C-alpha cells in the first residue's frame, strides 16, 4: 500500500557542503484509528530555515501526521527524526522540550484563563512557590515586541477575537522556545488582513533561523508564502517539490490525483430540463440572519438567494464563513430571522419535522454528529427523521421499517446488507450512503446537501454526485454546500460565494472558475 518512494523529487538547491541533517524527517508513518487508516507510509522531510507547506485535501492525513510529530499521537509504524535525532513516538512534553511547537486548527487555549496564564501553562515561571504573574506578563510583552504578535497579556482568552487567539497560540509555542513551528490550517479563521500579518510573522521567524510547517489546502497561500511543498493524498505522501517553479495546477493535480480542469469539464453536465430563473423559485431566502455564537458579529448576515426547480445552487467559501450556520438555520436546527419560503410556506416559525413534511430534505454536514444515531441499526437510521411516518398507532411499524431498509440497502448498495447491524460498524462511505438514501428517498422538493461527500472514497463520491444530479433532473431544488471547490464546480448550475457570513457573489456556472471564485472566497473582491 505504500506509494512509490519519491526519491527522484528535486532536492532543495544545496551547496557542495555535506547537507546538514534536516529539521524534520518522517519516514513510513502509519497511523490508524479503528478502521480508519489516517496515515499509510507517510513521509515528510523539512529543511532547517524554510517555510514548508504540507498540502492535501480534507482527510488526506496532514493533521494526523503533524500530531504525531508534536507527540499527541504515537505512530503505529515508521520512524521520526528531528534535527538528526531519532524521536519516534515521543511525548508532547518531549516535543516541546526539543523545540517543536504546534498551533492546532481548533485552538488549544483555556478560555477561563488569561493570555499570560495560557502562555506559561505547563512551563510556569515561579517565585518561590508562587506563580510570577508579572514575569509571565513581561514575557508575553517581550515576545510580542520581538515578533509583532500583539496581544493583551492580562485579558481572559474567552474575550479575545479569533485572530488574537491565534496569536496567543503562536506566542505559546515561541515562549517554549519552539524552533520548529507547525501551523494547522491557520488561515481558515482569519481575515485577509490578518493573513498578511501572519505571513509577515512567519517570514520573520524563518529569517531568524526557524523552521515552519504550514498545513493548508489553499494553493494561493502555498505559492505565496512557502519555500517547499509536500503533497499528501489518502494518508500517503505523493510528492515533494520546491515552490519556485511549482504551479497551482501541478499542486492541485497531485492533491486530487487527477487533472482538475479535466475533471471539472467532464463533471459538469449542464442544467436540468428547466433553465434557471425560467420558473418561480422553489426555495426563496430573504434577509436571513443568524446570531454569532462567540462574537457579536452575525454568523449569517442578511443572506438572500433563491433556487429554481431543476437547479443546483452551489455555495463555495472558505469553511467557517457562515455556511454551516446557514444550512442549520434553513433546516430548522437554529434560530434565525428573515424569511425562508418553500413554495408559499414560510419555514422560519416551523420546526424541523414540519419543514421535512413540507418537502425539505437535509443531508447534514456531519453524519456522526447529526445524520446518524451510530448505535441504532441501519434499518432504524434509514427512517431517522421520518419515524412518525413509520408507525402503527403509537408503535413503530417494524415490518415497514425493515421493508424500507431492504429496498434502500439494495438500491444504494449499502454494505453490510444486514439491516440489523449498528451504523457504527459501517465504513464512512456506507454511513454516508445511509444518510443519502434516507434523504433522497423521502418525498421532497428542496434538498440541502452539506459536504455530501466529505470523508468518503472515490467510488462513493461518483455515486453521490450522480444522485444529486438525478434529483436536479427530477425538478428538485438543490442547495449544495461544499468546501471542495472541484465538487461545487462539477455539480452547480450557479455558484454563490459566502464570505464573512454574507453572500458576496452569485455567478452563473459559465463565469465561475477557480480564479474568479477564489477572489471572492478570500474576500479580495466583492460583487455589488
Amino acid at each position: 500500500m505504500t506509494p512509490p518512494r519519491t526519491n527522484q523529487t528535486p532536492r532543495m538547491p544545496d551547496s557542495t557542503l555535506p547537507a546538514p541533517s534536516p529539521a524534520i524527517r518522517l519516514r513510513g508513518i502509519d497511523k490508524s484509528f479503528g478502521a480508519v487508516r489516517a496515515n499509510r507510509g507517510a513521509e515528510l522531510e523539512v529543511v532547517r530555515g524554510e517555510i514548508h507547506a504540507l498540502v492535501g485535501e480534507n482527510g488526506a492525513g496532514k493533521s494526523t501526521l503533524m500530531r504525531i510529530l508534536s507527540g499527541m499521537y504515537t505512530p503505529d509504524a515508521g520512524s521520526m527524526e528531528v534535527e538528526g535525532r531519532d524521536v519516534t513516538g515521543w511525548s508532547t512534553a518531549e516535543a516541546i522540550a526539543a523545540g517543536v511547537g504546534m498551533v492546532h486548527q481548533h485552538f488549544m487555549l483555556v478560555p477561563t484563563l488569561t493570555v499570560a496564564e495560557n502562555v506559561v501553562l505547563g512551563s510556569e515561571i515561579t517565585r518561590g512557590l508562587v506563580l510570577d504573574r508579572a514575569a509571565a506578563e513581561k514575557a508575553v510583552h517581550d515576545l510580542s515586541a520581538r515578533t509583532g504578535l500583539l496581544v493583551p497579556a492580562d485579558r481572559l482568552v474567552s474575550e479575545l477575537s479569533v485572530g488574537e487567539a491565534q496569536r496567543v497560540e503562536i506566542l505559546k509555542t515561541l515562549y517554549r522556545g519552539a524552533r520548529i513551528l507547525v501551523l494547522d490550517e491557520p488561515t481558515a479563521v482569519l481575515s485577509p488582513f490578518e493573513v498578511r500579518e501572519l505571513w509577515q510573522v512567519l517570514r520573520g521567524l524563518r529569517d531568524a533561523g526557524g523552521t515552519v510547517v504550514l498545513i493548508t489546502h489553499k494553493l494561493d497561500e502555498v505559492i505565496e508564502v512557502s519555500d517547499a511543498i509536500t503533497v499528501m493524498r489518502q494518508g500517503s505522501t505523493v510528492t515533494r517539490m520546491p515552490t519556485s517553479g511549482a504551479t497551482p495546477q501541478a499542486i492541485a493535480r497531485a492533491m486530487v490525483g487527477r487533472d482538475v480542469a479535466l475533471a471539472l469539464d467532464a463533471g459538469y453536465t449542464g442544467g436540468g430540463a428547466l433553465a434557471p430563473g425560467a420558473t418561480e423559485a422553489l426555495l426563496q431566502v430573504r434577509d436571513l440572519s443568524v446570531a454569532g455564537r462567540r462574537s457579536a458579529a452575525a454568523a449569517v448576515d442578511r443572506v438572500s438567494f433563491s433556487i429554481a426547480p431543476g437547479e443546483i445552487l452551489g455555495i463555495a467559501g472558505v469553511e467557517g464563513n457562515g455556511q454551516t450556520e446557514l444550512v442549520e438555520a434553513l433546516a430548522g436546527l437554529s434560530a434565525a430571522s428573515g424569511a425562508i419560503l418553500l413554495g408559499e410556506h414560510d419555514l422560519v416559525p416551523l420546526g424541523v419535522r414540519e419543514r421535512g413534511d413540507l418537502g425539505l430534505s437535509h443531508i447534514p454536514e456531519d453524519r456522526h454528529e447529526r445524520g446518524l444515531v451510530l448505535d441504532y441499526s441501519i434499518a432504524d437510521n434509514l427512517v431517522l427523521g421520518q419515524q412518525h411516518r413509520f408507525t402503527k398507532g403509537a408503535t413503530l411499524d417494524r415490518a415497514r421499517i425493515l421493508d424500507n431498509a431492504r429496498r434502500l440497502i439494495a438500491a444504494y448498495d449499502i454494505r453490510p446488507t444486514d439491516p440489523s447491524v449498528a451504523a457504527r460498524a459501517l465504513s464512512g462511505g456506507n454511513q454516508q450512503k445511509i444518510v443519502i438514501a434516507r434523504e433522497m428517498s423521502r418525498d421532497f422538493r428542496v434538498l440541502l446537501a452539506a459536504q455530501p461527500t466529505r470523508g468518503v472514497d472515490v467510488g462513493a463520491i461518483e455515486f453521490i454526485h450522480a444522485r444529486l444530479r438525478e434529483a436536479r433532473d427530477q425538478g428538485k431544488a438543490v442547495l449544495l454546500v461544499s468546501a471542495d471547490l472541484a465538487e461545487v464546480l462539477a455539480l452547480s448550475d450557479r455558484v454563490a460565494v459566502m464570505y464573512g457570513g454574507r453572500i458576496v457573489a452569485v455567478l452563473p456556472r459559465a463565469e465561475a472558475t477557480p480564479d474568479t471564485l477564489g477572489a471572492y472566497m478570500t474576500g479580495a473582491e466583492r460583487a455589488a
Partner: protein
Amino acid sequence: MSAVTAKSPRWAAIEEAVLPPLVALLLAMVVGDVLILTFGQSPGAVFKLLLEGTWGNAYGFGQVLYKATTLVFTGLAVGLGLRAGLFNIGAESQLAAGGFVAAMVGLLLPAGVPALLCLPIFILAAALGGGVVGAVPGVLKARFGAHEVIVTIMLNFIVLALLNYLTSNKVHVPDTLHTAELKSGALPRLGDFAEPFHGSAANVVILLAILSAVGLGWFLFRTRSGFELRAVGLQPKSAEYAGVNVPSVTWRALAMSGAIAGLGGLNYVLGYKHYYEEGFATGAGFLGIAVALVGRSHPIGIVLAALLFATLSQGGLAVNALVPKQMVDVLQAVVIIAVATSVPEVRRLLRGARRSAE
C-alpha cells in the same frame, strides 16, 4: 443472509453488555471473601447461609421478592432516565413522595371501597407524587440547563425534609413516625394465598412491578416515543436533526422516571404496612442506580439485578450471626464501582482482542 456467527456485531454487543456485570460480581465475591476472613469466618459457610436464608425458604424468598419489588421500580426509573441520557439520583425522594401521596389518598377514601375499585386511584396518586418530584429537575434542565444530577440530589433532601415536616406535624399517629392506616384499598400479601410465604412482606404489588417492566420495555423499544427518547439519550444532536424536541423529551423522561419511582411507594403503603412511614424509602434510590447499572438499563436486566440486590440485602440479615450484616452494604458498593469501571475497560479489552484476532 448468513447465520449469526460468533464474530457478528450482535454477539459483540451482547458480550459487551453481559461481561462487565459478571466481572463485577466476581470482584464482589473476592472482596466478600476478604471481609469474611477478617471476621474469622469461612466464606463457604457464609455464602451457603446467605443462599439458605434467601432462596432456601419461602419466608426468606418472600422477603427477597418484597425488596426486589421496590428495587424494580427505582431501577426502572433510573434506567429510563439513563436511556434518555439523564441521571436521576432522586429516586429515593420520588419513591417517598409516591408513597406519601398514596397514603394521603388512602386516608381520604371512605372505608369499605373494594380494593380493585380504588387501585387505579392509588396508582395515579403514587405516579403523580413521584412524577411531580421528577418533573422539577426535568423542567429546570429543559428550561435552564441546570444539571439534573445536582438538582435531583438536592431535591432528595428538600422533599424528604418536607415530607418529614408534613408527617410529623400534620398527619402522624402520636408517638410514631407514621400516618394512620388506609381506610380501604389495602392489597393482600402473598402469604394470604400461599401459606409458606406467611409473615413475609411480599405482596401483589410485585405484579405491578412486572407489568411496569414489560410496559417500559414496550415503550422504549416498540413505540415511536421510545425510539425518539433513546435517540436523545444516545445522540441529542442527531435526535434534534430527526425532528425531536429534545427539551420536551428531557422533562417528560424525568417526570416519567419520577412517576415510576413513585409507583414503588405502593409496595410499602398499599401492600405491606398500609400507612406511610418516615424513612421507608431510605437507600432504595441509590440501590436503584446500582440495579439500573448492573441491569444495563434494560427491563429484563433490571428485574434480574433487582433480585440480586434484594438477595444481598436479605442475605445480610441471614448471615448476621456469622458476620456483620453490614458486609452486604460493602459488597453492593463494590459491585457498583466494579460495573462502572469494568464497562469501559471490558469494552476496550474486548475490542482490542477482536482487532488483533482479525
